[in-house]
Every structure is written in C-alpha cells, then in structure tokens.
C-alpha cells in the first residue's frame, strides 16, 4: 500500500488488514474531499431510493429537471399492482422560480396532479436549490393535504446537507410519520406477523423472502419499501418483529419503531446460502414456536437439497479466484465476504460508500490478512487496489462496471441494474451463476490474446 499514492486527506479511509500495516479503525461517514472523483450520491438520492418503491404514491420532485430525470424509474423495484411510482414528476423549476421562489409552482403542480392521479399519498422531495431559495415546503404540502384530504409529505432532502445516509434517515422519518399506532390484538393472531425492512424488491427479491417466511408459518405485514402500498405502511405497527436486510437504509426506522411501539428488531441477511439459513433460524427462534422452528429446518433442508449441487459445481469452477467488493452499505459487504467463501473465492478488497464504524469492525474481523479495506473510494483507488491485489472480479454498481471491464476484470452488479434476484437460496445460485459466467467468459481470452502489431 505504501507505493500507492493516496489523495491527501484520504489516508484515514484506507486500511490493509494484517500485522505489518496499520489496523482499523478506518474513518467513515465523513465528507468526501473536495476534488474527488467520488462514487457517492446525495441526500436526495438516498431519500428517493428508499421511498420510491412505495408503489401507489405520487412522487413529485421539487427542483430543476435533472434531479427528477436521473431518478425516474432507475431502480428496478418490481411491483404487483398499479405503478404510479414509475412515472417521473418534476416541478421543473426555471430561472423565474429560482428568483421569485418556487412555492407557487409547487402548489400549482399539486393542484394539477392530485385530482388527476388521486394518489393515496404524495411525497414532495426538495432538492438543493429548493433548500437554498428557502421554499416553505411544509406550508405548501400542508395546504395541499388539507385541500385534498390526502397526506402530502415534504421530504427535506436537499442534496448538500450530507451524504446518501442522511437521505435514508430523512426517508425513514417520513415513513414513520405515516405509521399509525397498532390496532389489532396481536395475541389473537394464529401466525406471527413481522415487517421486512430494507428490501426494495429489486428483481422481485422481497417476494422470494416473503415466500420462505410464508412456508415456515410467518406472515409479512409490510415490506419497507419494496412493492409496498400506503395502506400497508400505515399498519406497520401491527407487527411483533422487524427484520432488517439493508441496515444502512432502515436501521433508523427500526429503532424508531422500537422506541414508539416496542417492536423489537433484528438484523438479517439473505445473501448467500449460509446467511439465508442463519437468518431464517434466527427469526424462527424469536417466535419461540416449536412448529415454526421445525418447519424452518425443513424448509432449509429442502432448499439446500435443491441448490447445493449447483453451488458445489460452481465452487469447483471458481475455487481460488479473487474478488473485490465495492458496494453501498456495510452489511452487504459483510455478507458478500461470506458468500464468496461459499463458492470458494477469497475477497481481497472490500469497500463501501456508506458503511458504518460497526460494519468496518466486523469486516476487519472476518477479512483475511492482506485484504484492503476502504471507505468512499474513488476510481483511481479502486483500480490500483484491484490490480495490486490481483482481483479476478469486482462486485459493484453502475459506475464501476465499465471500470472493471476496461481492466479486463469480470463484474457482477449488486446494485440497481441486476436483472435477476440475488437474495435467498435461489438468489445464491443466481449469484454463483453470474460470478461463474462473467469470470469464465471466453471474452477474456480475446482481451488477453490481442493481435501483436505487425503480425498480420
């Protein structure tokens, strides 16, 4: 690592595990250095990502056009009913609005949209400019809510007030406002009912998890926020447990629900066979119901019988290959380290955009010696470490894909561009399959071969 030039001020964000080198803690959650080619997004982006899957909501972006354009249906959150969330609404602020304020235009947009679409709930996102010109979002939303009798909720997500994580929190606050005190008598229910937090139903992943839980005798009350509806969200307090998949985005909501309604929560992970089985067991144990515990073991056993032959096949093919991981949240990174072990691969570099200190501590514990650990990396760092660490594959998001390809390194999208589910047992097979197809693709032969100049 010594020979790698790090941007001044970035030294505290990179560590290599092992004796010879400095050890953890790593800096994280800090502001990026000015002038970085940062992979990070903004508060608005975080809030939008979390709230957008609420399928029947009208999502109105108050700001100039770009912020809405880029987030119009970019997340492949699937849904099972009407899909108002997939339309792109923006107030498209113009110069005049910036000078005289955008409140009138926002009110006019709400007047136009609410009667037309009759949404059960409206989210109004503020962007940077709105924060600066100081539009009173609360007042405009309140007036519209009174006028039309639907909740119109301001999402204070001006991008500059922080990173994506702050946006997650903002979104959680908004969701919390929608949740009503519990109504049903929990004791009267025959099956336990839980909420599933931090799954945005990319490629239908939330449906897979819901189906496992159903098989073992547990009902999912509401998923936050994959394929969710306003009515379901309102009833979220009627659950006896919250399980959280993506902690980065939903930990805060779980905490708030515990405080307000005494709903306990637990962190789960459905990435990889091992984590999925462990998580199901944890949930089953929580219910303290022998029937559920037994059925859980049956479900796990049946799923393992189904998927393990495939996974072992891939393991044989992939044994000894090295992976680099650069993802949004810390918990995903942790799961991926374990998941790669399942298929015989070693993680040699691991980084996140928004990992928390606790995440990095766990990563530090489970990573092999020599692993590079980094927070809020930029492409130059990713490139250097992938090369020095000899990675065969990178797991990342949209912006990292072409970077890996240019280096002749295989790639798996673990962000919004994936087309098949990567969660649960079948997701583990998909993941192994995807890793296999990209690492073992014959295209890399073309990359390595090349035509020597003058040979033809």
């Amino acid at each position, binding site marked *: 690592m010594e020979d790698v030039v790090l*941007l*001044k001020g970035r030294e505290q964000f990179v560590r290599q595990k092992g004796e010879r080198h400095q050890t953890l803690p790593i800096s994280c959650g800090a*502001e990026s*250095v*000015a*002038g*970085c*080619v*940062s992979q*990070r*997004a*903004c508060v*608005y*982006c975080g809030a939008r990502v979390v709230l957008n899957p609420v399928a029947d909501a009208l999502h109105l972006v108050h700001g*100039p*056009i*770009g*912020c*809405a*354009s*880029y*987030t*119009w249906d970019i997340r492949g959150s699937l849904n099972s009913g009407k*899909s*108002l969330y*997939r*339309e*792109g*609404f*923006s*107030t*498209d602020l*113009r*110069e005049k609005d*910036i000078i005289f304020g955008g409140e009138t*235009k926002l009110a*006019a*947009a709400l007047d*136009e*949209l609410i009667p*037309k679409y009759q949404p059960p709930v409206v989210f109004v996102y503020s962007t*940077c*400019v709105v*924060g*600066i010109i100081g539009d009173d979002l609360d007042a405009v939303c309140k007036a519209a809510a009174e006028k039309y009798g639907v909740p119109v909720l301001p999402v204070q997500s001006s*991008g*500059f*007030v922080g*990173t994506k994580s702050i946006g997650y929190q903002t979104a959680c606050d908004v969701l919390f406002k929608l949740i009503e005190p519990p109504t049903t008598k929990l004791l009267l229910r025959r099956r336990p009912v839980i909420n599933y937090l931090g799954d945005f139903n990319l490629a239908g992943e939330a449906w897979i998890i819901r189906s496992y839980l159903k098989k073992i005798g547990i009902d999912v009350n509401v998923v936050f926020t994959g394929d969710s509806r306003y009515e379901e969200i309102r009833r979220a307090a009627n659950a006896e447990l919250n399980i959280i998949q993506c902690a980065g985005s939903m930990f805060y909501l779980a905490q708030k629900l515990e405080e307000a309604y005494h709903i306990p929560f637990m962190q789960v992970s459905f990435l990889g066979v091992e984590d999925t089985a462990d998580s199901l067991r944890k949930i089953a144990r929580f219910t303290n119901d022998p029937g559920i515990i037994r059925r859980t073991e049956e479900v796990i056993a049946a799923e393992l019988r189904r998927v393990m032959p495939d996974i072992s096949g891939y393991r044989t093919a992939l044994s000894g290959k090295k992976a680099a991981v650069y993802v949004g949240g810390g918990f995903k990174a942790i799961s991926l380290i374990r998941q790669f072990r399942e298929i015989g691969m070693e993680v040699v570099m691991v980084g996140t955009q928004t990992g928390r200190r606790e995440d990095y501590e766990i990563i530090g514990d489970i990573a092999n010696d020599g692993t590079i650990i980094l927070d809020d990396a930029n*492409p130059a760092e990713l490139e250097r470490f992938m090369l020095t660490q000899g990675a065969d594959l990178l797991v990342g998001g*949209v*912006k990292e*894909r*072409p*970077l890996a390809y*240019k*280096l*002749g390194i295989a790639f798996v999208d673990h962000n919004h561009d994936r087309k098949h589910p990567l969660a649960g047992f079948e997701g583990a097979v998909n993941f192994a399959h995807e890793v296999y197809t990209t690492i073992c693709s014959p295209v890399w032969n073309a*990359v390595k071969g*090349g035509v020597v100049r003058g040979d033809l």
Partner: protein
Amino acid sequence: MLEYTPKEMIKRDSGGMINPAKTCQPVGAMYAALGIHSCLPHSHGSQGCCSFHRMHLTRHFRDPIMASTSSFTEGASVFGGGANLKTSIKNVFAIYNPDVIAIHTTCLSETIGDDIPTAIRQSEIPEGKVVFHANTPSYQGSHITGFSNMTNAMVTYFSETKLADGKKEKFVNIIPGFVNPADMREIKRLTEEMGIKYIMFPDTSGVVDSPMTGKFEMYPSGGTTIPELKKTGDAKFTISLGRFASQMAAESLEKKCKIPFVSLKEPIGIKATDEFLMALRGAFATEIPESLECERGQLVDVMTDTHFHFHGKKVAIFGDPDVVTAMTEFCLSLGMLPVHVLTGTPGGALGSGLGGFEQEVKAMLNEAGVCGNVKAAGDLFTLHQWIKNEPVDLLIGNTYGKYIARAEDIPFVRFGFPILDRAIHPYMPVTGYRGALRLIEQISDALLDRCDRDAADEDFELVM
C-alpha cells in the same frame, strides 16, 4: 406502465413535467468537456449531481466516465463555494493530473452565485495546465444547452488569431453537436474523403468509445487538444452542426476571430448530408470524390428498394432538438408522415433570428403537406396523449420511449440520447450516407417485423 395517461388532453397550467424529455445542463457540459484531450470535467456543486451525471453517461456509453466534484457541504452552500473550488483544483492536479480541468456549475453553485473566474484566478495551477469554465444552471435550458455552453466556453477561453489580419488557413472548424462518438468519426471521415483539413471540437471519439486494452486509461487518446482549440481562430470557416448545440460557439468564434460560419442540420439523412458536403465543396472549391458519390448512390438505391415499406406510415419522433429536426426531414424523404414531433429542450430562446424548433419543424411538415403536432419544451406525457389521439405506426426516440411503445404496442426505433437499455449505439453512426443506411435498416426492420408478427397464417410470406 403508463396506465394513467388519459386520452383527453388535460390542461397543464403548472409548467411541471410528467415524464421529462430532457435532462439538465451539467450532463451536456460534462459530455462536451470529455471531448477535450486529457481533460477532467469538474462539477462545481454537491456530490449528488456529479454522481447522477456520471451514471447517466456511463449507462449510455458503457465506458468509465470520469469527473470530479467540489463536494459541497452545508457550509459551502451558505458561505459560497470558492474555497471548495480552489481546494478541488489543487487536489485534482495533484492526484488525477489531467492537462485540463473543465469546470461546470450546477443549480446550487449558480443559485448561491459563485464567481468561478475569480476562484480560478486565485487557484494554484501548475505550469502548462489549464482550467476553464462554463456556467450551466439547469433551471435554464437542458443538457443540450449545457453542451452548447461548454462548447462556447472552449471558444471564449482558447480560440485565438495568430495570423496577420484577414489571413486564414485552409482548414475548417467543425462543431459536431451533441451526437455519439461514432457520428463524430463519421463526420470526420466524410471531411477527410473530401480531402479537407479540419479541427473538430469537441471530439469525444476515442474518449467515450475507447478500445479495450486491459489497462484503465484515465485520459484515453481521443479529444481535441488545447493547441487545436487555440488554432480554431485561424480557420477558413466554421461549420456548426445542429444549431441548438453548436451555433452559439460558431457565433462566438465569428465575433472573436472573424471566422464566418454556416449553421447546418446534423447530417442525418440524405438531404442534410448533401448539404454538409456541399458546404465543404463550396468553401474549398473541391469536388465530391467518387467514393462519396458511390456511397450516396448506394443510399439512393436502398431508398428506392425500400420506399414502399415507409410510404404513408405515421411516425412520432422525440428527443433532442437537433437530431429530431434532422430525423424528421429524413422520415419525410422516405415518404413517412411525422405526425408528432417533440423535444424537451425549450426551443427558440436560443435561436439567433432563426426561429424556434417548432417553426422549423412545422415549416418542413407544411412543405410536405403533413399536418402534425409539434412542440418544444414538452414532456413524454404530452407525446403519449397525442399518440392516444392519433396512433402511429412507429415511434423513434431515446430509451424513455419504450414505455409508450409498450403501452400503445407500437414498433420502436431507439435513436438519440440517452439509450440506457441497448448496447452498441454509440459505436454506430447515424450521420452521413452510411448512417442513413443504418437508419433505414432499423426503421424498415421494425416495421416489417411488426408486419410478420401481426400477419394471419394465410398472409404470412417468406418474401416481403
């Protein structure tokens, strides 16, 4: 999808957008800046914008798109971003070591009114390195305006006259407009075939379609160099292609260095390509070489072979104004009826006495006797409503058209920017005679595939 769009046209007084047909200035500025050799675009604002813009370009070009950001925080947003910018410039040169930094502003830095030139002047800029800027507030215009502003900044910062008064060198400046790198390559090839020297700016070929080498090059070999940009001030004349994206820079160059310019359509389709080559021929008194005559002849041959595929077919076209105008002209030349033509970019305000987008397209339609809807600063909700009221046989536009195509079950040809869901487009030119051949292939395939799909068994034929 789009089950919410009603057929009856509703009043839309708020001025808001439903399913936008445009995006914001910085992404265009970023793209233009990538067309300078060894240049790192720098986004002066908060991280989110930069991250979105890079993501958008990355998805379209499927190449790593590099750009740095001033990473505004609350402090910078309240007290001004000058200090952030100076730190950024220092850091960028220290770490990423580009030859050029091209700064563009965002809504945020524009609204707080950061004075970019002053910040640049107060920065430490290493010997031989260059920093320049364009103002790109997104609450004006669109990504096309951003491209135009950044291209204009190339002229105002760099172009200079070296020769004695009135003397000009024998080469042409070509401003290609917001098109794919393959189109820039094709326009250069045509110019070379004519035997004419040129400077193209910006030129993203070789930058966003760089070859795979097994190495990651932060600054691939393509792009217009700074010496070339300087030299633009000595050209014989300038051709600006696409007036929304390119004309402003051509005008500045005329004002600054007395270089006359012609403003042409993007050379998409036979007529616009003819006009491009004629302009070159006229200015340099050369002949059109046989190679190009041959290409044109092939195109005409194919147009005759296929004209009955197109005749009388109704088509809706949307996207960026420059390519939409040219595409409309091409569709008319194939005998199609462009009954709905729409751009998200506001049209006209930028026009320099040339009339707006709507006027220009309407004039073309009138001349051909076609009656159609035309709108600038529109959105896809409007387009969808039009189509519900007057259905079309074909939709031509960027990726976002796929929703309408699906909702209304219309064949769809992807064209323009951005194309996020299909590969290869940036590598295949739609300009020039060869580009026109490709468009014909795509359009006629889409129409005929549809015929085959819909044909009853007894009508299904091998030969069409």
